[in-house]
């Protein structure tokens, strides 16, 4: 009896200890105040020596003359620049596999395929991305629905910001099909879908007239396409060539879809049409392409973001993980600034605009009262290659610190001394 109570006591102690240690590992503070030497709000002008008040993960006040309450925990960011986290409006990275083999799979979701352990997410957080819409790849006609995640958390559920957002339509013919066949397949699908919906509506009205209960639900394999037609989902239409752009615009007009165009570099040739359609655009990660001028036989550099910027198109950047530079959203923005884009506009293209395109601008994309306290602490100007993301805060919680980034240290520091084997010959 005595020993039993002893065990109970010890186990209770253990539980208390574990619980408390978990609690200490991630202190959740109700009230925070961030003191920064510069705040890039995106929403308005930059603030020098400003303060951001945060309560329960939401921004309560921003400004230079905000008083810090006595009970707030102060996070100092002197000599640092604080700005909203970067948002990526389209990516197919971080997935187990990007593309389904069949061309018409609007009912599948990237939610089932996101691999939280993929280093893509770890890299994204390190590079300052706080939210991204993960969509299926560009090889399937109706590829499936997307998921908005933050690159932090051990399960997809923990990473989740918004499920069931965006549906991928790719106009690039897959496999051996021609562009004719590809478009025909799309039209046939839409006709069949509309026939099905008419029949469904007919059955519904018939049941109502006969005063019978009607409990038939819409076919699950068609549900997402129906939601697309009802504007509950946004279509992300991928155009592989400039010739695909008019088709994308036609699809958008015929069916009245909420649309974001995802463009390959070649699509700059259709910039006039895109500007006229006023559709938002996600640019390819390759921002500069070379072309031979047929008349002068000279090589000309085409700066894609500048072409779209001059035409007045609102766009967002995306990254790819292969090349120096292109893997960072700030580098993409800096490249555009290099060739003449306005700095403010370039910064919006990696924060506010993508947030608008994927419908999370009520929470993310700028530092404003009422928005989520998700921000980056940078060691310098965001467009300077010598600045680093020092800390990342997501909803009031610091989730990344460069000083504790072991992987980054390994990539930058010389290896430990290895004893060289002596040559025996």
């Amino acid at each position: 009896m005595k020993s039993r109570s002893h065990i109970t006591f010890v186990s209770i102690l253990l539980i208390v200890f574990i619980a408390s240690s978990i609690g200490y590992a991630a202190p959740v503070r109700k009230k925070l105040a961030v003191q920064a030497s510069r705040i890039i709000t995106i929403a308005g002008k930059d603030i020098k020596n400003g303060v951001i008040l945060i309560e329960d993960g939401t921004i309560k006040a921003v400004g230079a003359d905000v008083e810090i309450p006595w009970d707030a925990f102060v996070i100092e960011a002197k000599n640092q620049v604080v700005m909203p986290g970067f948002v990526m409006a389209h990516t197919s990275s971080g997935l187990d596999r990007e593309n389904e083999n069949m061309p018409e799979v609007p009912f599948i979701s990237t939610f089932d395929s996101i691999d939280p352990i993929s280093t893509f997410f770890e890299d994204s957080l390190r590079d300052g991305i706080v939210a991204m819409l993960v969509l299926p790849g560009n090889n399937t006609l109706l590829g499936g629905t997307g998921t908005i995640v933050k690159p932090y958390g051990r399960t997809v559920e923990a990473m989740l910001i918004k499920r069931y957002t965006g549906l991928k339509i790719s106009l690039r013919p897959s496999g051996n099909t021609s562009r004719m066949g590809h478009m025909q397949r799309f039209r046939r699908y839409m006709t069949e879908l509309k026939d099905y919906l008419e029949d469904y509506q007919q059955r519904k009205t018939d049941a109502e007239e006969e005063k019978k209960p009607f409990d038939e639900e819409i076919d699950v394999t068609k549900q997402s396409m129906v939601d697309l037609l009802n504007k509950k989902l946004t279509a992300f239409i991928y155009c592989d060539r400039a010739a695909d752009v008019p088709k994308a615009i036609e699809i958008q007009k015929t069916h009245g879809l909420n649309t974001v165009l995802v463009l390959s570099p070649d699509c700059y040739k259709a910039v006039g049409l895109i500007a006229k359609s006023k559709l938002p655009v996600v640019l390819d990660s390759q921002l500069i392409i070379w072309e031979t001028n047929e008349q002068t036989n000279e090589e000309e550099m085409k700066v894609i973001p500048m072409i779209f910027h001059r035409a007045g198109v609102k766009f967002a950047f995306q990254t790819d993980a292969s090349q120096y530079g292109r893997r960072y959203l700030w580098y993409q923005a800096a490249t555009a600034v290099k060739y003449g884009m306005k700095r403010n506009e370039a910064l919006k293209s990696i924060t506010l605009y993508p947030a608008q395109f994927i419908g999370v601008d009520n929470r993310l994309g700028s530092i404003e009262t009422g928005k989520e306290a998700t921000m980056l602490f940078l060691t310098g100007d965001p467009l300077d290659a010598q600045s680093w993301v020092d800390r990342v805060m997501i909803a009031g919680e610091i989730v990344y610190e460069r000083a504790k980034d072991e992987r980054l240290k390994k990539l930058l520091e010389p290896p430990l001394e290895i004893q060289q084997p002596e040559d025996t010959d």
Partner: protein
Amino acid sequence: MRIYVILLTFLMLVSAFVAPGRAEITAIKAGKILTISGEPITDGVILIEDGKITEIGTGIDIPEGAAVVDADKKVVMPGIVDASAPAPVRGDLNEQSNEITPTLRISDALDPQSKALKRIVQTGVTTLFVSPGRQNIIGGLGVVVKPTGKVPQHMVIKDEAALTIVMDMDPTQGNRIPRGQPPVNFYFRRPGTRMAIIWMLRKSFFDAQQQTDSEQIEDPNLAILSSVLKDEIPIHVNARRAIAIRATLKVADEYGLKLIFQECTEGYKVAEQLAERKIPVVLGPFYYYPGSMGQYREGRKVNWNNAGILAEAGVKVALSSGGQPGAIDILTAATFAVRHGMDSDEALKAITIIPAEILGVADRVGSLEKGKDADIVILSGDPLNVTTRVEKVILNGKTVYQ
């Protein structure tokens, strides 16, 4: 007869007008001059005559009639030297008939109209080293060229600049006989292992050494290799992994070879050995290998600060585009080298004077000094900034990009 007289007078008149034009002087007024060889000059002037720099410094009088390039608010630096550039050639870079082809010269295949050449000029590169491809163990002789001229001979500034050797596994690629098929193709005889690559290299130099002392070497391959043994031609070794680098060092020690390492992804692991032997390295191409961070083709870890660690250890480091046409421009490579830990002065040297020294053309290019070629890049701001753009490129005193 009268016609001849008229023609003669006309010719004389024309020549009278043309002659002073030839000795034309160009003056560049610059806000900041990064000479590389010395301290930066603020509000300086560079005088150019006949494609050479005749005067550089502050307080220089601009002669009358000189064409003035106004770069008051700009930064001026020497033309960039790419010590491993995309080859401006027509056709394949790899000879498939043999693995040991030291006599092949890339200068025979140069194409002055190459697209790669026209593009690379616009990124500020004015001198480049071009070499045969990566499929042969001893690929052939590389050449230092300038991206100018209508005929290949005018481009060349140093032929037989280096002998290209590949010590990675690239020469073994695709050399195995497909299962169940007879070895009908002679490609299948090529090496399949790292051992074979090193053996073939060693054997080549052994054969050459046997003949070095003979008066006349009959085999042209051995003639080239023996001039390599006499240190007349340096060796440009492609090696990524530390194991390949160490193996090359061993062969080099045996024969007393003069090496330049290229690509050198794992150079940071052997930094001290390289510094000890005073072997320079040409890094690049620069990629973040996709998939998992820090992994590359041959499956070993990379270090982003490879350039910084090597420079710190005392190795001469040059940054290059690594012969990849799609790779980032060299200024960006230097910018990121600084981001990852390299000293910014070192990084600027690593794209100008150091590659020029490595290639043996430092007497002509690589810095802004009196008497050197007038290869000048005018930038909108600090060269190591992503938002800075190349505004003008002057090559041999002539504007080639604006």
